[in-house]
């Protein structure tokens, strides 16, 4: 029993490696394990509820940082990075005694464990009264990760508990605070696109709306351009949000939109699917009864497969298919590759600044309605194409020129992975 209590004391734990390249203390590894210890269950909520809330709290930090958290119920206790437990008064071998109901509701040790005062009235999700365990857990996890108290209205790191609204999230400045310690979220994407859909208003008017989506492997994020962040709770599994298309590894999304054509396509490997945006699912077959998926070589003769990415240029009604160092310009009117293609990407889309060009093997190409511009993405960088407006302001810029590259995470913020175990919440 004494040895067990000694294990619970933070001082007895082996010293962790910590990153201090900025003179700040933080975990040096990106995947951290956690456990709600058996001796520290709350008497107020079911064990499953407690674990779910902690899992959600950790996930919320994952959604805004490169950290991932996994519940570990099997490893030896001393190997667990973050242990959580409830106690009252003198508790869990902790040096800091709880004071009973009121005032101190929890405390956490930097790079260590979290203790909750079970004399407080902790409540679960969607409960109107009491102290939200989720909000307290998010706060205390912030301490464990290295954040101090922050006396800023709206910060999750405020020391005093404020009754939360119906929901709370990590705001911009809290995100930047944690990213100062751990950096932003970086990574390649499978495809990026704006999805257009028609909606009918309450007055019967048809309006056209769009949303921006980033896909990576089997997951996707909706990006809220006006808020400079992803939708709360993302990423989501592709198979959940996009019915009928491959569950992972989509190569390209193309929206052919002319006065006479309006068709959305997903590409993967040697095949493609047409998507029914009104009913939000893939078509089972085309207008001639041919079943989807169809071969790219049949639907887009002359275009090789698999492709790296593609986008539709409304100026000339051509789809630009990218593969390796080459680009194929496909005329949707003639349904054929334009003469003179394929060409080198660097010739069709020349660098504005010598040497600053993605070259080839792109990850994604994307026309953004928000920015009214085409972007080429490769790795953690992107390049914007010269637009008509750019050329009107600076006539010396080449048509379809590629402007100098920038970091993806400085344009689209906080597109962060979460641990696999948290993806299905």
């Amino acid at each position, binding site marked *: 029993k004494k040895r067990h209590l000694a294990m619970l004391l933070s001082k007895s734990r082996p010293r962790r490696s910590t990153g201090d390249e900025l003179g700040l203390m933080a975990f040096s590894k990106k995947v951290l394990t956690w456990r709600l210890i058996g001796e520290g269950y709350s008497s107020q909520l079911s064990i499953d509820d407690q674990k779910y809330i902690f899992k959600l709290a950790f996930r919320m930090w994952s959604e805004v940082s490169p950290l991932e958290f996994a519940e570990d119920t099997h490893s030896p206790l001393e190997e667990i990075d973050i242990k959580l437990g409830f106690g009252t008064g003198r508790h869990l071998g902790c040096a800091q005694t709880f004071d009973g109901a009121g005032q101190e509701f929890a405390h956490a040790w930097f790079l260590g464990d979290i203790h909750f005062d079970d004399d407080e009235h902790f409540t679960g999700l969607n409960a109107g009264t009491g102290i939200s365990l989720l909000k307290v857990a998010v706060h*205390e996890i912030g301490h464990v990760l290295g954040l101090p108290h922050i006396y800023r209205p709206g910060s999750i790191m405020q020391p005093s508990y404020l009754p939360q609204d119906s929901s709370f999230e990590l705001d911009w400045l809290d995100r930047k605070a944690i990213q100062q310690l751990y950096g932003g979220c970086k990574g390649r994407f499978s495809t990026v696109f704006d999805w257009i859909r028609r909606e009918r208003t309450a007055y019967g008017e048809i309006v056209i709306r769009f949303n921006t989506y980033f896909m990576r492997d089997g997951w996707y994020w909706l990006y809220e351009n006006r808020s400079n962040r992803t939708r709360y709770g993302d990423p989501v599994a592709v198979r959940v949000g996009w019915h009928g298309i491959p569950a992972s590894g989509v190569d390209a999304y193309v929206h052919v939109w002319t006065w006479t054509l309006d068709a959305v396509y997903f590409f993967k490997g040697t095949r493609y699917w047409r998507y029914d945006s009104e009913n939000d699912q893939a078509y089972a077959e085309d207008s001639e009864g041919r079943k989807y998926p169809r071969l790219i070589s049949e639907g887009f003769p002359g275009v090789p497969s698999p492709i790296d990415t593609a986008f539709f240029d409304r100026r000339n009604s051509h789809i630009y298919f990218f593969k390796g160092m080459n680009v194929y310009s496909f005329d949707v009117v003639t349904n054929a590759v334009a003469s003179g293609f394929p060409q080198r990407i660097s010739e069709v889309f020349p660098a504005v600044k010598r040497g600053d060009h993605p070259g080839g093997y792109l990850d994604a190409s994307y026309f953004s309605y928000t920015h009214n511009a085409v972007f080429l993405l490769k790795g953690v960088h992107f390049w914007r194409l010269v637009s008509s407006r750019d050329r009107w302001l600076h006539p010396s810029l080449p048509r379809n020129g590629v402007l100098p590259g920038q970091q993806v995470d400085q344009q689209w913020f906080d597109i962060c992975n979460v641990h696999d175990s948290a993806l299905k919440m």
Partner: protein
Amino acid sequence: EKVFHSRDHADVDMTLHHHADLVVDKDTAWQFLSKYGFLKSDKWDEQNLPEEAEFLSDESPDVKDTVPLIHEGTSSSRRGSESDNPTESSNFISALKEFQMMSGLPVTGVFDDATKAAMNKPRCGVSDRGSPTGPTSTQNPTLWSPNANRSR
């Protein structure tokens, strides 16, 4: 198990719980400020508590508060000497002002009802020492926009 009858446990009887000692006077306020890092003391429960007369506020130099010293749970605390200790009083007022500023209260240095209420709010047990009082971001503030929709 704490007794309850409602499905959401909203009626858990909290009267049976041990309740935290409230901050009610300047002695407990001193303990609070020490505990959370506003006063430079590592062992707040052994703090040398100043005499009553030294808690005079700047606002009422001619009035002496009669503040009973509370020793419950602090058996090792020692009473201060009978001589004046303006340094400790000054430290207390400075700490109080810092707490008031960080809490968005009028910075008066007076242990008033609003300050007392703020000290008795549920809060995290981690010390506030070294906590920033304003935005911590180094990003361009124009990039920040309020999140209108917080629904997950």
